[in-house]
């Protein structure tokens, strides 16, 4: 668990943390769950502090990143539900997505289109524009500083792009990945053609 903390924090407090864990174990002072919960809460904070201290980063474009994340959330939830639902279906149970959410989206095609295509495109565009704007605004920054400061926005933009491609290519992508995995890039063009019709 200590390994999950940033290096600077670990270097300074590793011995103290180990000593404290030992003390707590001797006293039976806290449950493992308390320590895990504390680590979950404190590790991200230490990384935020680490970026502030070492790279002097002030995170930018956070509103765009948050708006993008909110737009991607319904898609992510849908996929998160669909995957185990498909497993249930394979095990012989009724697919809850087909009888629930799938039915809603099936009968409201517009809603499905918005969630699965337009929301990710909107997330991509919002962050793309925000990044272009930030690029003009912060011209004095190095590439590394720019990427670090806008990391959330960049991640959401990439996810938005990936999610937007997911629906039209969701059958082709596994076929393509499997083809590359098995044969490398030797038969790249035939593979593209084969997977296009998958």
């Amino acid at each position, binding site marked *: 668990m200590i390994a999950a903390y940033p290096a600077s924090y670990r270097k300074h407090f590793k*011995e103290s943390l180990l000593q404290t864990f030992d003390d707590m174990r001797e006293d039976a002072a806290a449950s493992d769950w308390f320590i895990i919960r504390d680590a979950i809460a*404190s590790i991200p904070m230490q990384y935020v502090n680490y970026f502030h201290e070492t790279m002097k980063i002030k995170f930018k474009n956070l509103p765009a990143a948050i708006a993008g994340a909110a737009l991607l959330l319904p898609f992510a939830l849908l996929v998160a539900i669909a995957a185990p639902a498909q497993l249930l279906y394979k095990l012989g149970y009724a697919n809850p997505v087909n009888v629930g959410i799938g039915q809603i989206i099936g009968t409201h095609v517009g809603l499905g289109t918005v969630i699965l295509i337009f929301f990710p495109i909107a997330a991509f565009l919002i962050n793309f524009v925000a990044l272009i704007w930030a690029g003009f605004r912060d011209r004095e920054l190095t590439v590394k500083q720019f990427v670090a400061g806008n990391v959330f926005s960049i991640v959401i933009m990439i996810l938005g792009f990936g999610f937007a491609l997911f629906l039209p290519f969701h059958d082709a992508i596994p076929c393509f990945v499997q083809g590359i995995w098995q044969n490398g890039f030797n038969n790249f063009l035939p593979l593209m053609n084969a997977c296009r019709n998958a």
Partner: protein
Amino acid sequence: MKQKTPANDLLTPAVFYILLALSAQERHGYDIMKQVKTDSAGAVAMGPGTLYGSLKRMMNDELVEEVASKTGERRIYYRLTIKGKKALGGELRRFAGAVKFAKEKGLKQLLALRWTLDTS
């Protein structure tokens, strides 16, 4: 413009209770954790990750400093700096002022005022 520092700014509950725990004596990490829990009557229970994160920030703000153990233990002890003592003193004075104000106004009257504000 007057720069805000922890010495004249409001302290977070974690920072306040750590300063309070160190006000009587130097303590090591686990000792601070226990004292904070006692002083806050269990309301602030911080784990090791949070504690050392707070101590790191407080050392950057020069509120506390590390001291080597006098008994030759491997533990690191922490103590208040002058700035830390001032910050704690300021916060305690603020609390004392609030208590004095509550006594003067009468607690019932204050609670009634709060109820009026909550419901308006």
